[in-house]
């Protein structure tokens, strides 16, 4: 009997996760389901008992859930932004990366969008936001921006999937009904190819400003208050840069993991990691520049309330988190990416950045809250099992979403790879030729 994936030719291995899942898939599935299930239980418990089951108090009214909210939404900038920018700039090395990145965005955006509801004291009244909403509140701006981004990234993920889904409908053996529905009758005719390309181009262009607006608006959540070290104009670009930074790091981590477990060494080659590693290095330096600027501006005028927050981070109880952040976001990545730029070094740097960017969100939110303007007694915030469990559940949900996606659809855009083989080289040749000076033309 013919192997199910034999029709797929030289890219057959890309369809292995769908037709030959293997034992590891089921083990991973069970583990993630267990963790996510436990997180759901913890949340239900919180829903009925109240937010008292967390470590939150007065004045640290916001902590883990909002940190994770900003963290997850920040990661969502990975996919769509990088994929869109690489496609727009016609970078040929984007081909195996685009869908991996786009999936990250959609899955993590859904998880991130859940977190404000997890953080609410009365989620059963969530509809009040729609019935009595005030657009003056940055929370409504968040709602609008995240909805728009979710829609944009889902459409932007879906459109390039259509040719691949059609391929599986025609040549594959499983889930034919699903692929028939989702492929929308795609047959590869020139007219259809043109339609998809046009749709993708419009989405590519639209997604970039939408993505920028999302994290800008999240930063406004903090910047629109008068709290010390929150009320800063640098927050909008700081958060956007931080989001792209953390997104690139998570993308690299995902790429390394996928490469290992799905044997994609021939597709996700060292050069792809090297290029993304360069982007990570640049973002790390850019992040360092913004951070330096923020803290110098705070330190110079020695305004007492701001200095209280400043010292809390520099030498106070949060010193370990603050300097840990600097080490994992700036020192280690810059050193690794400058001197040990192989996949292993890039992987370690990316893990460091992922941790460091989470610490950055923690460092932004909690110290400003703890350092109240009026001298109240404040303790040291410690998260409880509920908060940690829900955080791990969020990560498990992300892995779960990814796993399920990999089970149904190829992780690498097969048609884009094939297009690269057939047309890419000629296109690039023509492009380079167009940059070079023309032969001299005799002018009469």
């Amino acid at each position: 009997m013919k192997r199910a994936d034999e029709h797929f030719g030289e890219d057959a291995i890309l369809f292995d996760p769908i037709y030959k899942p293997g034992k590891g898939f089921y083990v991973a599935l069970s583990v993630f389901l267990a963790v996510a299930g436990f997180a759901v239980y913890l949340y239900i418990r919180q829903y009925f008992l109240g937010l008292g089951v967390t470590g939150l108090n007065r004045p640290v009214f916001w902590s883990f859930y909002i940190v994770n909210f900003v963290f997850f939404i920040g990661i969502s900038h990975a996919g769509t932004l990088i994929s869109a920018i690489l496609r727009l700039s016609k970078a040929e090395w984007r081909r195996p990366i685009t869908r991996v990145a786009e999936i990250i965005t959609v899955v993590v955006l859904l998880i991130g969008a859940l977190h404000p509801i997890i953080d609410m004291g009365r989620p059963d009244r969530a509809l009040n936001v729609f019935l009595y909403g005030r657009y003056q509140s940055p929370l409504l701006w968040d709602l609008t921006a995240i909805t728009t981004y979710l829609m944009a990234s889902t459409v932007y993920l879906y459109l390039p999937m259509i040719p691949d889904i059609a391929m599986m409908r025609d040549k594959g053996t499983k889930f034919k009904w699903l692929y028939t529905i989702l492929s929308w009758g795609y047959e590869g005719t020139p007219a259809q190819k043109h339609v998809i390309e046009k749709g993708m181009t419009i989405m590519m262009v639209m997604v970039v400003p939408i993505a920028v607006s999302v994290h800008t608006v999240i930063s406004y959540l903090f910047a629109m208050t008068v709290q010390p070290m929150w009320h800063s104009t640098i927050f909008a670009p700081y958060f956007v840069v931080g989001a792209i930074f953390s997104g690139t790091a998570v993308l690299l981590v995902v790429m390394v993991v996928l490469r290992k477990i799905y044997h994609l060494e021939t597709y996700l080659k060292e050069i792809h990691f090297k290029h993304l590693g360069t982007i990570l290095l640049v973002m790390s330096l850019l992040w360092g520049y913004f951070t330096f600027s923020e803290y110098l501006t705070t330190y110079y005028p020695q305004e007492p309330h701001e200095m209280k927050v400043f010292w809390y981070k520099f030498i106070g109880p949060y010193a370990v988190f603050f300097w840990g952040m600097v080490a994992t976001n700036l020192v280690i990545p810059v050193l690794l990416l400058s001197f040990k730029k192989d996949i292993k070094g890039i992987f370690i740097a990316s893990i460091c950045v992922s941790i460091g960017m989470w610490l950055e969100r923690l460092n932004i939110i909690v110290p400003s809250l703890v350092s109240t303007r009026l001298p109240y007694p404040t303790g040291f915030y410690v998260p409880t099992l509920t908060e940690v469990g829900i955080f791990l559940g969020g990560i498990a949900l992300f892995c779960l979403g990814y796993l399920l996606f990999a089970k149904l659809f190829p992780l690498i855009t097969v048609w884009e790879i094939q297009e690269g083989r057939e047309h890419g080289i000629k296109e690039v040749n023509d492009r380079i030729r167009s940059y070079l000076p023309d032969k001299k033309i005799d002018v009469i």
Partner: protein
Amino acid sequence: MAKWGMVIDLDKCTMCGTCIASCHIENNVAIVGPEEAKKNRAIFWMDTITFEEGEYPNARIKIVPRPCMNCQSPQCTYVCPVNATQKGEGGIIGQIYPRCIGCRYCTVACPYTVKYFNWYKPEWEKEFKKALNPDVSLRPRGVVEKCTFCTHRLQKAKEKAKAEGRKLIDGDYWPACAESCPTGAIYFGDLEDINSKVYELHRSPRAYRLFEDMGTDPTVYYLMEGR
């Protein structure tokens, strides 16, 4: 239209804490219990702030009663997504408990940290339940609350004035803290009525407000201790 304000004379305040106790009783403020209080979750609509000044041997502490500042440019109102905290009549910043979704944005935006959150469902001992004030609604779990200048007393005073066929005037109502203060350190009234005591006091050279330069425009004034 009135602009209700408070003036607290720090020369008269003995830091006895009666205002805190009476506020608790008047407004059905939840008693969270010692474990929750240790976690910094105690609710004090009227609280005291302890300012430490100077160093030994010239150290002094100043304990100041602190209700909600009732800002006329209220940061909390600006950020509420559902209009649950809003500037009501007389300039009193109110809290609509049934509408609050518990996002705690207002608690985080307040520069004076005067807002409190119900982390669990408020519960009272049997004896306290008998003493609950029927004029003040009990808050459920997961909503924000704060000092409201005893706005339920304002409602009662308005109805009384209407029944008597006259307008509401300064002196018709005062919050529980002002009423119970044994030294009369807390004055309350209409800041726009030039004949009121608060009007005269808030223009005194001893009068100041907390973080005046932040532009929140609080209606709670303090009279500096005369030295």
